[in-house]
């Protein structure tokens, strides 16, 4: 019978062998400069498309894109999984570059996960100031814009043959055809939700998340004229008795299905889903920005960009300049951006690569060119406090001093509920609700300098 000492000895030996078998042997320090690896993290859609563009690790030769380097792309199952991973990343396992949303920038920069990045002069010419602003925080740029995320209004050509020129024209059509065509709504949001996707409707009616001046969002003053917006809501979205006329509701539920079924004449759709509508036979030539109250004006939607961002882990891994080179030379160049977007299929932010856009994407480009506002996380993500009680209340009935001021993402859906909910108990007077929304966004704008 084995003695316990022998058993322990055998076990230790087996364990050591097994541990060694699973371990990675350290690289030979004297080996002649083997190719290093630049690591990029992306979500489950972007990662395979980038790999198609640059090749797998085994297909690449060191220096194909960055001298002395190969580029390894790691994909995460979903966008949320990628965000969770980058939030938890450490210098030991973090990537050199992460491909993500522009609204990640403020928090990741605050957490020290991103590093400042400088575009070369030639690459900088390929992007607009708004696009670079989307990937900046505290005056520092953190990445290269990849593609544009925006929405546009699609006119249902089964019902209406020409793109409307004013908001009123759409409301008139709805009222005239509501019963005969069995319309469930006049205008609804099929893509982007009731805050991001519905920004164009807010703007078309005279509202705004923040006031713009010289291409920059203002940190002081009211974001819009409350009386004008409230009057537009009363005349276009409400009946004379103050009840909603049904043209625009506070819910985006079943919008896409209803639109395709011919029960909604106008829908706001995202540029990531236009192919679904083409498959149903809709004409992408009917895309436009949301028409404004005055004919010829348009409501600006968010024209945000996704970005390839430089992480602070790159410097710690000794890959900082390699990562910067890849960002400049691949994503910053027209050829590199085009080769990626050929597979990704979104409208490229890079002007030089815009020629690859399909007719569908061109429609979104036209809509964005008519009216677009940058998506500024520092203004939209909230964080302000109602120190006076007058942001969320009035002099007669002040709110709680020190209460958190909601983010735009929560405030706009709440505004729609207050204006056009089918439940009368949830509705507020349009002027009161609009004033509260304006107060909220003004407070968040003032607080943006602290974000």
């Amino acid at each position, binding site marked *: 019978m084995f003695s316990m000492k022998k058993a322990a000895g055998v*076990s230790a030996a087996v364990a050591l062998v097994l541990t060694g078998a699973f371990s990675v042997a350290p690289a030979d320090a004297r080996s002649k400069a083997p190719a290093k690896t630049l690591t990029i993290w992306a979500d489950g859609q972007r990662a395979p498309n980038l790999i198609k563009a640059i090749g797998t690790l085994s297909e690449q030769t060191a220096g194909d894109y960055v001298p*002395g380097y190969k580029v390894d792309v790691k994909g995460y199952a979903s966008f949320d999984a990628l965000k969770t991973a980058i939030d938890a990343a450490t210098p030991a396992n973090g990537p050199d570059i992460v491909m993500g949303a522009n609204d990640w920038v403020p*928090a990741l920069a*605050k957490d020290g996960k991103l590093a*400042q990045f400088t575009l070369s002069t030639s690459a900088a010419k390929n992007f607009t100031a708004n696009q670079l602003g989307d990937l900046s925080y505290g005056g520092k740029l953190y990445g290269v814009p990849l593609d544009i995320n925006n929405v546009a209004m699609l006119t249902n050509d089964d019902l209406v043959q020409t793109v409307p020129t004013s908001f009123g024209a759409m409301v008139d059509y709805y009222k005239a055809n509501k019963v005969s065509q069995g319309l469930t709504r006049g205008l609804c949001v099929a893509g982007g939700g009731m805050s991001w996707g519905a920004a164009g409707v807010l703007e078309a009616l005279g509202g705004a998340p923040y006031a713009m001046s010289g291409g920059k969002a203002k940190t002081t003053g009211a974001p819009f004229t409350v009386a004008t917006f409230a009057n537009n809501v009363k005349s276009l979205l409400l009946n004379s008795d103050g009840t909603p006329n049904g043209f625009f509701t506070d819910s985006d*539920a079943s919008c896409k299905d209803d639109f395709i079924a011919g029960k909604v004449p106008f829908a706001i759709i995202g540029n990531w889903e236009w192919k679904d509508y083409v498959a149903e036979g809709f004409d992408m030539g009917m895309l436009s920005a949301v028409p404004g109250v005055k004919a010829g004006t348009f409501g600006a939607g968010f024209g945000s960009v996704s970005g390839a961002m430089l992480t602070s882990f790159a410097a710690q891994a000794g890959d900082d300049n390699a990562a910067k080179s890849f960002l400049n030379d691949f994503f910053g160049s027209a050829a590199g951006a085009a080769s990626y977007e050929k597979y990704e299929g979104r409208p490229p932010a890079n002007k030089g690569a815009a020629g690859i856009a399909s007719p569908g994407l061109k429609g979104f480009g036209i809509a964005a060119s008519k009216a677009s506002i940058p998506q500024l996380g520092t203004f939209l993500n909230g964080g302000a406090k109602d120190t006076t009680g007058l942001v969320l209340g009035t002099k007669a009935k002040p709110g709680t001093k020190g209460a958190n001021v909601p983010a735009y993402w929560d405030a706009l859906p709440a505004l729609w509920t*207050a204006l056009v909910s089918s439940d009368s*108990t949830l509705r507020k007077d349009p002027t009161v609700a609009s004033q509260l929304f304006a107060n909220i966004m003004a407070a968040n704008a003032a607080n943006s300098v602290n974000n």
Partner: protein
Amino acid sequence: MRILSGIKIAVIAKIILVSLALAILGLLMQSAFMNGDVQIGSFLAVAMVLIALIYFTKISIPMKFFLPGLLLLITFVVVPVVYTVSMAAYQYKTGNKLSKPEALAMLQKSDAFAQVPTEPRYDLKLGWCDGKYGDAKPVAGPICALVTDYTTDKYFLATADKFTVVPKNLVTFSKLGLPNGVTQTGAQPAWEEFYPDEYATYDKLLNATRFKYDKPGMFMKAEGYSVMAVYAARITYDSKADAFTDIKTGAIYKDNGKGNYANTKNAKDVMTPGWRAVVWFDNFVALFTDPSISQPLISVFIWTLVFATTTVITQFALGLLIAIVLQKKIKARWLYRSIIILPYAMPSIMSILIWGGMLNTDFGAVNNLISLIAGHKIHLNWLTDPTLARSAVLLVNLWLGFPYFYLISSGALQAIPAELTEAASIDGASGGQTFRRITLPLLMQMLTPLLISSFAFNFNNFNLIFLLTGGGPRDVLGGASAGATDILISYTYNIAFSKGTENFGLASAISILIFVVVAAISLYGIRRSKVLETFA
């Protein structure tokens, strides 16, 4: 002849299994130490020693059975609890996630200098000067940058110590017109571009190099392998005073004791990133003094109590009622039992999402059914009206939970001796009296631990709230930071993971509060019911 006896087989199997466990733990330990996770690595090392000691000696036979459970208990219960408690004492939120040395290093690197916007961005080629190139490549040496200003057609060579203007006639160009070399003449150093593998080898050195510039107070820094930018110092750091000074404004930023360097004249003006700072009880104090937290917390706490209590009472009542009914011999009893267990058999996540759709105001089956019965269209805002949303949450939870109580009540009813009820009947007790005086007290004695655990579960029933109502409806425009159906755990989640900001320290403090409340209520319930005495 038997080569191996049964005992030998058992010993060999033990060696293999323990070796595998040790190998896996060893691998994890190695990777933990390599990642700098010293605490995890140390714990794994101790675990390995314990496993070897317990299973290869006769030091303690009972521990051979207890050790796996003990290690798992420490890993998955004790450590998270200790971690949560310790995090509650920290300023641990968005912008305060690093250690102080990490944050300080980052601030010194990223904020210490800023690009000079009035200076051009140059094109860059990296290489070596002064003969430190060619076949006899240097092991290390000053990187020499060939800098091109295309706007003025000027060329420079720059190292950390020297900035030299290079006459164009000494620069050689590739067929594409790009500079690719500098000819050596007299004092003019020669220059040769990096070999391809040198970019990767010297990236870290390049990142640390500040190239000399011809203007005072400025230097150049590579921004990749092809861009050179001009920088100037923006802030200075005094390590003795542990303070930063803004060179332009003169503002002084000192450690504010809450994880940031803050402007001494404007506390709101803080430098980021900050760090995880020990703030002791600040997060607990904020629970009761910060109106943005304390005000919703009280209403959320009350609703959580109501929700958990009502849920347990209704689920138990319905489950027991059905158990009593189905105790009697009725036709197709097996069918009823099967149907009643169905909600319990279905994944609750699916059931909740389906209920969410059925409760939709405009298209939901519930409103359609009510409309059908009423004979006209009825719009009940199940999920957007505060009262109806709370009712909906209770209703859906009743649906999800009553089969469980039906099952345990059925079992408990069968465990009550029939003689007791028969004796009561002979003594003239009515059915109601028998139930109240005999069946229910006996049931309660058996089921109280389950009722208490159900209460604790529902006190933290995050899935239901998150999936059905998301905690809403919430009067956002009115400044409500908690929704009508938010319970403490969903409210905590919103604080910890709301858009744009995370506050783990505060969320940990609320978690501890939840633990204290649930523990206190459970303990009270157990003592009142004297359940523990029956186990004594």
